[in-house]
């Protein structure tokens, strides 16, 4: 165990300068590629200043472009609502797959994370992630604290962007941001100290996520590669980022008490409510209609509808292959694996949802469903104890999905594979090191893990002085 992360850490430290050079090479010659849709957001904040604006909002409302702009913006707002509900999906999946003695704790974290995430994104994250055209092709940029519309007319019309207003942009991106921290929450559940985790999440979502996000979506260096790195809706930028944070946390925390017997055999720690877990996965799937559909950044009918089809087919394929894989490997049709498989399919298709045929999306999702089962078994074996399978779903399938953009669909090709690897490795290294260092510092300062007694008693009582199901308490407190 110890050796495992020492190895990883060393590798990471060695690799950093390497990747930096490599990326720099790529960035120098290439002009910022004008990717029609996905990267449109990148150069937005300052575009507004330059472009000709409408006299006033009335004038805009009377202009021929008003109807389609309103429709586009409406789609983005609803996508925002759908991404929002993913937070409930995460909350219920994680609650369902853990023990009832830690339920209040998980619900508390997953309720507060989107709250904190939105606030920090308003204060700092949005302007770190989308610093504007001045920072195109860069590693880092920042355009000042807070959100506000300095120039109403420009920011609330299609002068800002063809697909949405400034406010919609902020809220849609803000809903994405908190997702990364929520992913971590599941993996470190049932033993992490509440306070420590809240501090971690806040910093992670305020700083780490927007910086790597800027590399691609904010028009940064990954977007400026000759063959630009491609990550449509965030297999890497959102899911792997969360997954790397999760991996760092789990490595520093160690497994839950009782997860491994004295002789090192894996012992299952049963989740306490399969209905909650199932509700969560369906809500996540629903949310993905907005997560991927909204990532078109307009209501473009052909593109959005294609994205919904690839998204749903990948989810369906992931569900089926993971059920089959678990049936073959484990002899029983395992519900929790089928649920993980659906999420795996969704994460897998996310990087290339707008570039795939129906058939490719089935293949990508189907492979993700197989990968996730094997990955869960693998991490259990190497004693990376991840109660909800977050690392397998978000990190492993996030990497798979990002790679798949180079293997299937419109962008397939060796050059793309290389760019995808650059993105995966560079963002992985940055995020893992950031998260590891942050968790490590917090471990020194605040402590990372509750005491064994508190863990056995359950975090609900020890951290919150509360019970999730007081009426059924006797049963709950084993």
């Amino acid at each position, binding site marked *: 165990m110890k050796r495992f992360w020492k190895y990883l850490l060393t590798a990471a430290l060695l690799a950093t300068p390497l990747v930096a050079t490599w990326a720099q090479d790529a960035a120098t010659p290439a002009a910022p590629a004008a990717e029609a849709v996905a990267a449109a957001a990148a150069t937005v904040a300052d575009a507004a200043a330059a472009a000709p604006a409408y006299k006033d909002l009335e004038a805009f409302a009377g202009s021929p472009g008003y109807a389609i702009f309103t429709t586009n913006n409406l789609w983005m707002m609803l996508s925002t609502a759908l991404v929002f509900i993913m937070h409930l999906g995460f909350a219920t999946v994680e609650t369902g797959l853990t023990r009832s003695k830690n339920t209040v704790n998980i619900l508390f974290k997953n309720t507060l994370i989107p709250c904190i995430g939105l606030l920090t994104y308003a204060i700092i994250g949005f302007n770190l992630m989308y610093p504007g055209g001045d920072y195109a092709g860069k590693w880092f940029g920042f355009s000042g604290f807070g959100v506000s519309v300095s120039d109403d007319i420009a920011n609330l019309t299609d002068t800002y962007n063809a697909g949405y207003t400034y406010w919609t942009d902020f809220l849609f991106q803000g809903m994405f941001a908190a997702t990364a921290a929520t992913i971590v929450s599941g993996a470190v559940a049932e033993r992490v100290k509440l306070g420590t985790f809240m501090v971690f999440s806040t910093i992670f979502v305020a700083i780490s996520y927007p910086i790597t996000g800027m590399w691609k979506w904010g028009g940064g260096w990954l977007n400026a590669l000759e063959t630009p790195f491609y990550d449509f809706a965030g297999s890497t930028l959102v899911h792997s980022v969360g997954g790397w944070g999760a991996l760092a946390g789990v490595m520093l925390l160690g497994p839950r008490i009782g997860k491994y017997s004295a002789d090192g055999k*894996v012992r*299952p720690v049963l989740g306490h409510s399969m209905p909650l877990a199932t509700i969560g996965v369906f809500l996540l799937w629903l949310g993905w209609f907005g997560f991927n559909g909204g990532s078109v950044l307009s209501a473009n009918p052909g593109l959005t509808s294609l994205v919904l089809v690839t998204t749903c087919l990948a989810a369906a394929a992931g569900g089926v292959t993971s059920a089959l894989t678990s049936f073959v*490997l*484990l002899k*029983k049709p*395992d519900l*929790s*694996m089928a649920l993980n498989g659906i999420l795996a399919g969704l994460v897998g298709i996310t990087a290339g949802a707008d570039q795939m045929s129906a058939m490719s999306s089935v293949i990508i999702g189907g492979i993700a469903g197989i990968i996730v089962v094997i990955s*869960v078994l693998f991490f259990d074996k190497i004693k990376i104890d991840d109660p909800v*399978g977050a690392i397998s779903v978000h990190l492993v399938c996030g990497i798979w999905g990002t790679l798949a953009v180079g293997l299937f669909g419109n962008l397939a090709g060796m050059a793309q594979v290389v760019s995808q690897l650059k993105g995966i490795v560079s963002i992985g290294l940055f995020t893992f090191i950031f998260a590891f260092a942050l968790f490590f510092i917090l471990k020194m300062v605040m402590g990372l893990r509750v005491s064994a007694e508190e863990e056995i008693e359950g975090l609900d009582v020890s951290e919150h002085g509360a019970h999730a199901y007081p009426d059924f308490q006797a049963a709950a407190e084993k």
Partner: protein
Amino acid sequence: MKKIEAIIKPFKLEEVKDALADIGIEGMTVTEVKGFGRQKGHTEIYRGSEYTVDFLPKIKLEIVVADSVVENAVAIIVKTAKTGKIGDGKVFVLPVEEAVRIRTDEKGDKAV
């Protein structure tokens, strides 16, 4: 008075209760328990790890009866709860020194 404690399979509860009612026993207390015995639990799998459910759900009946009734009651329980398969359970008989009906303060055999 004696207390009969019977550990039986849960789905037999209804039947045993009815059989006891037939011989006039109409008071008993039931607890959901888990039993560990020769009947080994099944192996289950959760997310790829096997585990054995050692403790199987059983029902414990507690029935306090007058000495004269004990033998018959035990026989009825044994007969009714038997499936012949492993894990059918046990019946134990313990001595009881006193019994009080809370509502009436009645004591002894009248109380049960």
